[in-house]
C-alpha cells in the first residue's frame, strides 16, 4: 500500500474516531443499521452482475438471524451490562414459547397476550433464579452452571407433564380458531415477510431499551455492578435490587423471542425450545459482536448466523460447516475478545494510525 492511501485512510479513521466520540454516533449507526435492515428483504431480489444476494441469503435465514440478534441483545442486558453470565437463557426463551402456545391452544387467548404472559412468567422465573443465586452469592462458573440447571430443569419438567404437552409439545392453532385470520392481530402470516418485520420491530424495541439503559442512570448502576460489585455497593447502589431488575428485564424480553419462535415455526417441544444449544445460540452473537455494547449483538448475529449458513450451503460435505463455525468461535475468542465492534480500532492499531497511546496526564503522574 502506498503511504498516500495509508494516510488518507488514516484520516478516514480519525474522522471515524472523532465521530464515535460524539453522543449521536451510536444512535446514528443504529439508525443506519436499522435502515439497511428495513430494505434488506428488497435487496435480496436485486441482482448485480448475475449474482443476487437472494441466491445465498434467504428471508428465512434473515429472520433466524434477527431472532438471535434479538435474544443476544436481551441477554446482553443481564450478562453484558450487569456481568451476571447466564448460560440458561433457554429457560426464558422456552417460557415465552410455552406461555404463548399454551394459552392460544387451550384457551384461544390471543398470542400477543400470551407472549406478554409468557414474558411475565419468564421474568418471574428470572427473579426466582436471581433471588436464590444472589442470596447464596453464586458467582462465575457456579452462577453459569446454576442458570443452566434451571433451564434444563424446565425442559425435563415439561417433558414429563402431559398437560403441558409432554415431549410432543404443541402445534400452533390456525389463526381462524382465535382470530379473524392471518394478520398482525393473529401473530400469524401467510408469508415470511411480515414475520421479518415483526422480529425486526422486536429488535428495534429491545435495542431501544438497551440503548436507553446504556445511557441512563440505571445503566450506569448496572455497569458499576459489573465492574466492581463491592465498590458499587459502597457508592450506595442497591446491588441486589439492580441485579434482579437486570435479570427480570432480560428474561422478559428473551421470552418474546420464544413467542415469536412458536408462532413462526408452528411447533414447539421441550427439545427444541429448551435445547442446550439454544443457550449457546442466545449468547454467542453478543460475545462475538462485543459484550456489553448495543451494536455488538446485532453485528455479532449477522456474522455468526449467516456465516454458518453460508458455510453450510457452500460446503458440500455435511458437517464441514460446523467445523468452520467452531473454528470461527475459537478464533474470535482468541484474537478478538472484545468483539467485532473493536475491529475498526484494531485495524487502525495494526496499520499504525492510532494516536500515540501514551496519555500526557498518565505520563505526568508516573514520572513525577
Amino acid at each position: 500500500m502506498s503511504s498516500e492511501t495509508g494516510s488518507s485512510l488514516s484520516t478516514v479513521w480519525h474522522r471515524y474516531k472523532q465521530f464515535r466520540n460524539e453522543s449521536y454516533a451510536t444512535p446514528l449507526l443504529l439508525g443506519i443499521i436499522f435502515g439497511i435492515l428495513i430494505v434488506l428483504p428488497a435487496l435480496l431480489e436485486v441482482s448485480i452482475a448475475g449474482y443476487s444476494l437472494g441466491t445465498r441469503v434467504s428471508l428465512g435465514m434473515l429472520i433466524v438471524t434477527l431472532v438471535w440478534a434479538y435474544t443476544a441483545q436481551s441477554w446482553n442486558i443481564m450478562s453484558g451490562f450487569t456481568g451476571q453470565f447466564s448460560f440458561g437463557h433457554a429457560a426464558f426463551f422456552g417460557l415465552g414459547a410455552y406461555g404463548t402456545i399454551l394459552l392460544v391452544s387451550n384457551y384461544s387467548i390471543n398470542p400477543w397476550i400470551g407472549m406478554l404472559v409468557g414474558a411475565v412468567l419468564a421474568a418471574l422465573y428470572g427473579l426466582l433464579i436471581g433471588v436464590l443465586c444472589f442470596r447464596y452469592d453464586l458467582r462465575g462458573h457456579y452462577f453459569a452452571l446454576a442458570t443452566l440447571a434451571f433451564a434444563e430443569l424446565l425442559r425435563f419438567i415439561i417433558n414429563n407433564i402431559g398437560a403441558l404437552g409432554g415431549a410432543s409439545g404443541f402445534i400452533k392453532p390456525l389463526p381462524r380458531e382465535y382470530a379473524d385470520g392471518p394478520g398482525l392481530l393473529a401473530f400469524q402470516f401467510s408469508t415470511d415477510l411480515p414475520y421479518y418485520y415483526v422480529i425486526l420491530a422486536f429488535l428495534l424495541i429491545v435495542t431501544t431499551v438497551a440503548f436507553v439503559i446504556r445511557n441512563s442512570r440505571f445503566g450506569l448502576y448496572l455497569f458499576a455492578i459489573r465492574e466492581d460489585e463491592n465498590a458499587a455497593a459502597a457508592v450506595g447502589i442497591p446491588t441486589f435490587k439492580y441485579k434482579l431488575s437486570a435479570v427480570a428485564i432480560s428474561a422478559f424480553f428473551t421470552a418474546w423471542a420464544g413467542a415469536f419462535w412458536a408462532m413462526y415455526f408452528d411447533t414447539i417441544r421441550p427439545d427444541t425450545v429448551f435445547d442446550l444449544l439454544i443457550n449457546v445460540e442466545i449468547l454467542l452473537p453478543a460475545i462475538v459482536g462485543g459484550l456489553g455494547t448495543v451494536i455488538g449483538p446485532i453485528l455479532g448475529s449477522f456474522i455468526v448466523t449467516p456465516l454458518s449458513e453460508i458455510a453450510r450451503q457452500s460446503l458440500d460435505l455435511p458437517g464441514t460447516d460446523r467445523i468452520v463455525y467452531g473454528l470461527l468461535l475459537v478464533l474470535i475468542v482468541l484474537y478478538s475478545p472484545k468483539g467485532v465492534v473493536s475491529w475498526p480500532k484494531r485495524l487502525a492499531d495494526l496499520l499504525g494510525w492510532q494516536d500515540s497511546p501514551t496519555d500526557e496526564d498518565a505520563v505526568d503522574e508516573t514520572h513525577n
Partner: protein
Amino acid sequence: MVSTSILAVSSHLSPGIVATAVGVPLQSGTTIVQLLVFALLLGGIYGLVALGLTMIFGVMDVINFAHGALMVLAMYIVWSLSSASGLTPLVFIPIAVVALFGVGILIHHFTIAPIMEAPQENQLIVTFGVMLILISSIEIAFSPNPRSYNIDLGSVGAAGVFIPEGQLYALVISITAVIGMWLFLQRTQLGRAIRGTADNRSGAKFVGINIKRIDYLTFGLGAALAGLAGAAIPLIQRFDPYIGDVYLINAFVIVVLGGLGSFPGALLGGMIIGFVQVFGQFYLPGSVYQVMIFMIFILVLLLRPEGLLGGKRT
C-alpha cells in the same frame, strides 16, 4: 481435596442407607440388590467420566466443554485400530489414552493457554468451539453410523442378580483409573505438584513449580482421562459421534456435586447420580429422574457450592 481417602467413599454406599433414603415401597430383595448393583456400576462409570473434567476444573479453573467430544474421539480411535488389526479393542485402550493426552496438550497449547488469564466465559466458548470441531470431524471421518466394539460380553450372575460383564469391565477400568490417578497424584512429585498448584496456585511458584507447564500436563491428563472413560463406554453400549453430550451434562452435575477439583468427590457424585438415575428410572415415571437430578444439582449449588467433598470455594 484430592488427597482424601478414596476408601472412605465406599463406606457411603452401604445398601441400608440407600434403601431407606429411597423410601418407597420396596420390591423383592433380589430386585433391590439388582438395582443397587446397577447403580454402583453406573455410578462408577459416571465417576470415571467426571474425573478428567474435575481435574481440569480444579487446577485450571476451566470448564471443558470438549470433554464429551474427547471421549468420543477415544472411542473411534480404539474402534478403528481394533477393526483394522482385528485384535481385541481392550489392547488399544491404553493407546487411545496416550493419544488423547497428546490431543489435550495440543488443544491446551492452541486454545486455552493463550487465554488462561481472560474472563471465564472465553474459555467456555473456546472449548465449546473445540467440541464442535471435534464432533463434526469425527462425523465426517466415520459417518454418523453407530458402531460397537467387536467383542462379545455376557453377564455373570448369581441368585437372580446379574452383573453385565461390560459394565463390570468398565467399573474395573474406572476403579483402576481412580487408583492409578490417585497413586500418581499422591506418590509422585509431579502429581503432588499438580495438587499443589490446584491448592495454592501462587504458592506453587515459590517452590519452583512452573505452573504453565502444570497446566499443560493437567489438560493433557484431563483429556487422557476423558479418553479412558470414552474408550470404556463402548464396553457397555453402542456409540455414535453424539454420545458424548449425554455424558457431558451428567459430568457437569457430578463435578459440582462432588466438589470442583475433588477426585473422591467425582466418584461420590457419580455414585449419587447413578443411584438417583437407577432408582428414579425404576420408581418414577418417564424421565422424572432427570428433574430430580437437576433439583439436587441446584440445591447443592445453593447450599454447598463448594460441593459435597470440595475443600474450598473458588
